[in-house]
């Protein structure tokens, strides 16, 4: 019988070099984000969705009415990460949170850098911008307490 030492092992790195296209609405959202501006989109019922969606949640019609929103919001739900993984936005314990941007009716997912005992549903947070912005979600480095 073979022993453990007889078995060959090798590092194997599988990579798919995808480029993802934003489409007409998300292009505008991420272009604005690059310029430190958050955008939402108005639905047929007059609600503001942030991040914006391309189609009306009720009627499925095209949505085009983008609105500017502030860089502050409120935590509506959160989950604490004790041990961040290599690809997480923060390399120290942090919270993944759903954050409803002020003036929006829906929440977005992002990281919150704050002490654990201060991360609460209802806590006010604001965007910490990344110094180098390219037009993607990591242009927001994370949120912090407002």
């Amino acid at each position, binding site marked *: 019988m073979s022993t453990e030492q007889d078995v*060959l092992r090798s590092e*194997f*790195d599988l990579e*798919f070099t995808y*480029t993802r*296209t934003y489409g007409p609405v998300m292009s505008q959202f*991420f272009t604005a984000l690059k310029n430190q501006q958050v955008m939402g989109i108005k639905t047929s019922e007059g609600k503001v969705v942030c991040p914006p969606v391309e189609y009306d949640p009720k009627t499925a019609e095209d949505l085009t009415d983008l609105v500017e929103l502030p860089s502050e919001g409120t935590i509506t739900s959160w989950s604490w990460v004790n041990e961040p993984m290599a690809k997480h936005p923060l390399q120290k314990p942090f919270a993944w949170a759903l954050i409803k941007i002020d003036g929006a009716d829906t929440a977005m997912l992002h990281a919150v850098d704050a002490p654990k005992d201060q991360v609460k549903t209802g806590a006010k947070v604001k965007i910490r911008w990344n110094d180098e912005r390219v037009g*993607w979600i990591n242009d927001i480095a994370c949120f912090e307490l407002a």
Partner: protein
Amino acid sequence: MSEEKDIVEGFNSPVNLKYTFAAGAATSKFLREIKKGKIVGQRSNVTGFVSVPPRGACPISGTPMTEEVALPETATVVSFTIVHIPIPNAPVDPPFVVANVVMDESDQTFIHLVAECDPSKLQIGEKIKAVWKDESEWDLTLENIKYFVPTGEGAVDLQELKAKRLKETEKYRNA
């Protein structure tokens, strides 16, 4: 807002999966042999099925394969496709042939390159032989075989080849 020319239309989103690949006992043995320039498969003493590269178990009976069998360097093209786009690090330029091949005296196919031939003239059943890289480049990989080339014998009938193998392995099933 920025000018239209500055619109961000997409982003790079590479998917990266880091594995540690464990070859397993049978494949480890095979790779150590191929590093020495030898093609060594395994035979099932229940069905006579010969597999290369070996996988440790007979695909027909599921029983462990313990008998090693040295194989010749000749093979048969079972199916193939002609590739017209360059593949990074490939030892051949397009158009080249990627073929499903079965080594002589074995029953399991594997994928390899067929070169030094006119792809448009290659046939299913074509007899081919291994061309090795220079011995100084041999490593723990089936890529020690640079590619296969036609032997010049032409093509055999695959049904006949299959019947021949069934006959050759009959004694194991009757034992």
